[in-house]
């Protein structure tokens, strides 16, 4: 039953990853057919590279902004929408819409909306007496802005997953909770919803953190790492090294290191959550 999937995983992930790991031990460039083994040089070089530290920090900051929101907002949305009789489908459609959007086009839209001078977002903030916010031009704000765009695009999906998880909770548990006196929303949530939602939560948490660490498209389309490396996240750095500077070996080493870190992170998350959910 797992054979087809395992075979494809091997072909699509494992073999290429092995190739990447091997490449990380070379100085391959794609430009020249000549290459040689360099051992762990690429890895050593990493720790002397200021951009490496910068990208790590940016990624961590971005994840710290993105992750909680990507989890909590959809959860709250799912809970408040799921119970609703009126407008339920309206809200579901509207919040899911961004998932269907084409990022290539949306990047143009967002760059227009986030225009720090003529942009509509600032116009709105202005009418509230706030702002203006320098969305994409300020090193302090740019990661928040990027997180906002990613959230916009992912909230609907996580929300639908949570709704699916909520639907699967047996009604009888809520009945029992009501009889037991747990009819305060907080109690209901903590005692029934949250534990019963555990598998979904694990999924959302794990995939959202991986998504956070894998941020690439918005940066490539919108800021290219600007201003001044402030939005240069890890995967973008890898892309620059590999496909702009053609330091394939070094890029491979960066990837291997980084994937290792995320993997450990994700695995711990999953196993811990699995254990507590049992």
């Amino acid at each position, binding site marked *: 039953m797992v054979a087809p999937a395992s075979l494809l995983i091997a072909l699509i992930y494992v073999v290429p990853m092995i190739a990447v790991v091997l490449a990380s031990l070379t100085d391959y460039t794609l430009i020249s057919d000549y290459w040689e083994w360099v051992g762990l040089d690429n890895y050593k070089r990493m720790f002397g590279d200021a951009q490496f530290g910068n990208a790590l920090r940016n990624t961590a900051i971005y994840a710290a902004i993105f992750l909680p929101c990507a989890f909590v907002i959809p959860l709250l949305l799912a809970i408040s929408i799921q119970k609703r009789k009126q407008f339920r489908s309206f809200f579901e459609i509207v919040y899911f819409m961004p998932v269907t959007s084409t990022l290539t086009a949306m990047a143009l839209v967002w760059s227009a909306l986030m225009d720090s001078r003529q942009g509509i977002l600032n116009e709105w903030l202005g009418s509230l007496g706030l702002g203006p916010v320098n969305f994409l031009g300020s090193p302090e704000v740019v990661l928040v802005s990027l997180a906002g765009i990613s959230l916009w695009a992912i909230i609907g999906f996580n929300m639908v997953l949570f709704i699916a998880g909520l639907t699967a909770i*047996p009604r*009888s548990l809520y009945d*029992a*909770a009501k*009889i*037991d006196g*747990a*009819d305060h929303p*907080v*109690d209901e949530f903590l005692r029934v919803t949250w534990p019963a939602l555990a598998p979904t939560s694990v999924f959302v948490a794990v995939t959202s953190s991986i998504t956070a660490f894998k941020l690439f498209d918005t940066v490539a389309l919108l800021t290219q790492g600007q201003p001044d490396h402030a939005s240069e996240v890890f995967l973008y750095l890898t892309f620059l090294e590999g496909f702009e500077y053609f330091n394939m070996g070094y890029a491979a080493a960066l990837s291997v290191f980084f994937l290792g870190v995320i993997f450990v992170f994700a695995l711990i998350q999953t196993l811990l959550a699995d254990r507590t959910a049992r």
Partner: protein
Amino acid sequence: MARLTLTDIKKSFGETRVLKGISLEVQDGEFLSLVGASGCGKSTLLRIISGLETADSGRIEIDGKAVDQATPKARNVALVFQDYALYPHMSVAQNMAMPLVMGRLPMRARLPGAKFLTPRHAETRREIAAKVQQVAEQLRIAHLLDRRPASLSGGQRQRVALGRALVRDPSLFLMDEPLSNLDAKLRVEVRREIVELHRNSGLTFVYVTHDQVEAMTMSDRVALLQEGHLLQVGPPAALYGDPASADVARFIGSPEVNLLPVRAAAGALQLAGQALPVASGQAEGTDLMLGIRPEAIRLADAGTAGGCFGLQVVRRAVEDLGGELVVHGSLAHAPDIPLRLRLQKAPDGSAPIPVPDTFAAEVPLGAVLLFAADGQRVAGPAVMARAEIPA
């Protein structure tokens, strides 16, 4: 302490009209059993009383206060669910402690991790744990307290569900077949626990059961539900001995009452050609039903005794229940009219089974019930002859 008053409760699920107007008053401290055929709406009624379901129309009052709009919590009822509804992610102890935790600890102390932050409530927590332990011991599940429901047997789960109700101090106990998955021995024990709880607490109980013995022995009154109506509400003995209709007679008592088709004649009843010396008081020619409990029929070894009438019976099958026998037979002169007899074995265990396939039986005149063709009870001599049963 609560008096429960239901007035004209109606409930439909889509097309299915389940409850068609139930009015019922349960006195403070009373133990009322609710019985009825499978699917007749017993669970639905309990759910309406507890506030989990809203009736389509009608009023529910607890202690004279209308609670139709009140939440289950406000009604403060304990409910044992027929399908248990245990929290799968909690241990047995946590499952049982839930109502107490919710009732006794303030919100702050209920938050996760609050255990360590609110030492003031340690005392309450200890009390809760002690109470859970005590009830678990009563129900013989103390050794399971750390388990999750998934690893319990059917009967164990049912006891956890019951325990979750018993730890509480509600105004009203609602129990939906709480003993159905227990073995006979355990059932007797737990039954006794419940009766004792009822006696000691003085609380009001509404108890759904399909076990005749439970209904008869535990309750102050029994309410029989059928096709959305309450057929009869009264003390167990009255339902058994003085049923208001053939339906009631048929439902209460096992094996089922014998209902023989008879026709009123002058001072007698015609049973498939045989004249029985029972005065029905009905117009001649009226079709009636003669109800005879299986245990009211005895073997007539030496001719029919006085005050009795005789029947010739063909034996078809015999069930041995250990202490007694159930004989399935039919009338000798009308083989399509079945007859059930319950015969006590001799104390030494020897069976009083008549050796011939056809044998004579007799029925005391005072033991018969008379019903009209539509099932309504007909006041007849049978009623007159009944004695009150001391309890």
